């Protein structure tokens, strides 16, 4: 955890805490007033609603949108609790808070500090609201997959559902998927046009061409003013974040006093899996230990396996065939896993959004990714997923065939296109 203790000049200390909290507040989305923090230390209920709202903004999977209506306090509290739990927040007192959002300001302050101390929270939030001048494209979907997303709508079926209705809905979904791909392709084709028509227009030589936003700026000055306003507000938040960085020490010292004011909770040891940078020697040690364990295991397994085989030897050829089939299946799965591992390990997977820059073949320098390489990595990932899908489909087909086989006199006709 990023807490460093240093001596703070007591003369500064008086004004330092409010300044630190103000900076933090300004760096957070819709941050509450510093007074709220002070009240939260004493667990005053009037500070609670603002902190629930703040935590909701911080933990919500979608970046805060000013125009979007906030969900009800109950929904906010539920989301805050469940996201904190899924991230491993240890205090049970938080879970037990009422969901009407009326209480628990101190617990919420602790949770917020926990989030701040734990990882790059501010950085992530700032990245979310960043003004994007370039045409960006995510190279992975891991963030989307990791966020809980909107809750799945649940339809309660009264009585039985006609399978044809499900097939109909599935078909609709397929058409939408195809349409989505078509619009993505159109989007890319049009981006390509903007990039090639504006070649040489950009003041930044390493980019060479304009993005859609930049091209829009040339056409629409009012849009330019709006963009300027957004940039200014982003700048203000960045400055506040810097200020917070300089002053956070005093905040943490103050938080110690908050923690002292808390009734101690029957502490359960929490364990956050975190890979620390250690020397290679330690890894070596672990590897050797693993090796030894494996050998030991081998030695134990062999005689047991021999004994087992001797016992089942008398069970006939059917048993043998089943055994061979499962061995084969395991081997295949292992190879697939190994292949996936090797592929994943070879190249560090690129993450997050990247600006699309069109460049002449071979002229790309610097830290950027090459589109063809990203595409190659994605293709191999796609192949892995498709193999897994085919395997699952094969299993379903086998199961269906088995079920159909149980009904004599039936001919099984696959629906067309399946």
């Amino acid at each position, binding site marked *: 955890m990023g807490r460093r203790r240093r001596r703070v000049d007591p003369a500064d200390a008086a004004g330092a805490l409010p300044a630190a909290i103000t900076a933090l507040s300004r760096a957070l989305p819709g941050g509450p007033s510093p007074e709220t923090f002070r009240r939260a230390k004493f667990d005053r209920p009037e500070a609670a609603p603002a902190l629930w709202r703040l935590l909701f903004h911080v933990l919500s999977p979608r970046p805060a949108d000013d125009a979007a209506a906030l969900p009800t306090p109950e929904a906010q509290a539920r989301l805050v609790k469940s996201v904190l739990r899924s991230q491993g927040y240890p205090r049970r007192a938080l879970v037990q808070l009422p969901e009407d959002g009326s209480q628990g300001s101190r617990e919420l302050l602790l949770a917020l500090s926990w989030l701040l101390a734990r990882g790059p929270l501010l950085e992530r939030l700032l990245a979310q609201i960043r003004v994007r001048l370039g045409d960006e494209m995510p190279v992975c979907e891991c963030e989307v997959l990791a966020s809980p997303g909107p809750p799945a709508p649940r339809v309660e079926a009264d009585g039985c559902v006609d399978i044809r209705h499900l097939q109909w809905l599935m*078909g609709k979904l397929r*058409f939408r998927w195809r349409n989505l791909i078509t619009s993505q392709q159109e989007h890319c084709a049009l981006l390509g046009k903007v990039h090639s028509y504006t070649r040489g227009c950009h003041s930044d030589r390493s980019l060479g061409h304009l993005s859609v936003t930049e091209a829009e700026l040339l056409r629409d000055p009012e849009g330019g003013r709006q963009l300027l306003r957004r940039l200014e507000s982003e700048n203000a938040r960045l400055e506040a974040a810097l200020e917070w960085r300089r002053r956070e020490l005093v905040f943490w010292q103050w938080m110690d006093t908050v923690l002292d004011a808390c009734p101690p909770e029957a502490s359960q040891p929490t364990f956050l899996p975190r890979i620390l940078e250690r020397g290679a020697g330690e890894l070596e040690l672990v590897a050797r230990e693993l090796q030894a364990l494996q050998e030991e295991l081998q030695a134990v397994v062999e005689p047991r396996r021999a004994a087992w085989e001797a016992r089942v030897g008398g069970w006939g050829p059917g048993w043998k065939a089943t055994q061979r089939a499962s061995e084969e299946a395991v081997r295949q799965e292992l190879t697939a896993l190994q292949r996936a591992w090797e592929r994943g390990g070879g190249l560090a997977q690129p993450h997050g959004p990247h600006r699309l820059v069109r460049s002449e073949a071979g002229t790309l320098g610097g830290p950027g990714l090459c589109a063809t390489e990203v595409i190659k990595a994605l293709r191999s990932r796609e192949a892995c997923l498709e193999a897994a899908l085919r395997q699952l489909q094969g299993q379903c087909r086998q199961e269906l065939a088995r079920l159909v086989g149980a009904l004599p006199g039936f001919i099984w006709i696959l629906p067309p296109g399946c």
Partner: protein
Amino acid sequence: MSIVTVQLGQCGNQIGFEVFDALFIDSHCPQRLSSKRENEAYQASCKERFFSEEENGVPIARAVLVDMEPKVINQTLSKAAQSGRWKYGQHSSFCQKQGSGNNWAYGYSVHGPRHEESIRNLIQKEVEKCDSLSGFFIIMSMAGGTGSGLGAFVTQNLQDQYSNSLKMNQIIWPYGTGEVIVQNYNSVLTLSHLYRSSDALLVHENDAVHKICAKLMNIKQISFSDINQVLAHQLGSVFQPTYSAEGSFHYRRNPLVLEAGKSKIRTPVDSASGDLMENLVPHPEFKMLGVRNIPQMSENSLAYSTFTWAGLLKHLRQMLISNAKMEEGIDWQIRPPLPGLPNLSKMSLNKELHFNTSIANLLILRGKDVHSADLEGFKDPALYTSWLEPVNAFNVWRTQRAFSKYEKSAALVSNSQFLVKPLDMIVGKAWNMFASKAYVHQYTKFGIEEEDFLDSFALLEQVVASYCTL
């Protein structure tokens, strides 16, 4: 959003021409009732879909022409060029010297693989001209050799190569009396193959369109050109632009799919309330679509007629439930089954009265006071299968801009039982021939084995059974 049309065989090429011509003429026809701005938006939307950048001011159809004989392609190209309104691209056609002799197997197994690459390149070039490709519209007959056999092959190729693009096949159902002895074989093979590779099969029956020409258009000597014009009119009334959402006045960019309207660069379009493929054919066993339209008449009669939305929709609804292809000769006795009856009796009742149950319907209204039209008649749950609610099964598109010369007009695209009977008939006839092994060697000779026939029969019988038990 653009659509690339693939015209295959004699029938596909002739119809393709009429469709483009109908689309172009309609989008340029003078409109008293719409504002200049609205007309321009309508024109631009139509152009983006079906035509590409003009060459010397003449728009070029987003189309690829394929036939194994040069005659029809040459006629089609020159007819378009002579119209002076629009034309086909200079290098957008592919033809050979030798046809398929009405043998599906020859088109599918010989012509297909032999010319696969040339056709694929041609299509690819057309696709590259689109900023965004929404899908393919493939026009072909069902009963012949080239259009149907090669068409099935090309559709399958498109499915492999552009699996995310939508594919709709316009299929011409042969006359019941039949011109070709093996038309039932060819039809069974075409339908079963398309059922696997296409998203929707939009079917026009020659017999039905012929009757429209005779009864409604008062044409004495009916030619293929007359039939194709009626057909093109129906397709145009479906594919021309409509507003993207209920209550909106933006034109829908893509007739085949839902609009996301999120692209930063273009003006955002409201998300559509409904779209053709997603609303009509998401189920893999139900892909058959039919079109009905009203009013349909010769220009002479049109001058002396007035219409009300209530009257038009009342007729159109009865056309749907009684499975009538045109306004004339509707059986008004047929009523939707009473609600609350158990499923079994509903089924037998339907059979007796030939009530046509729908899975889903899309109604397209064009013209004056379009927002005043009352649609309650189409939202009756009794019209639809028990496993879909009307709110999911019924959709409407509208525009105030009139279509062609009709002040008010309505078209209905439906996924319903309308084809069960003809399909059952074709499968039955083909099966009888197959049981006596008649002409099968003509197919096995080119690599279509008996096993393939059996698979096709099984699939189509399943389709008939699925539609019967809605």
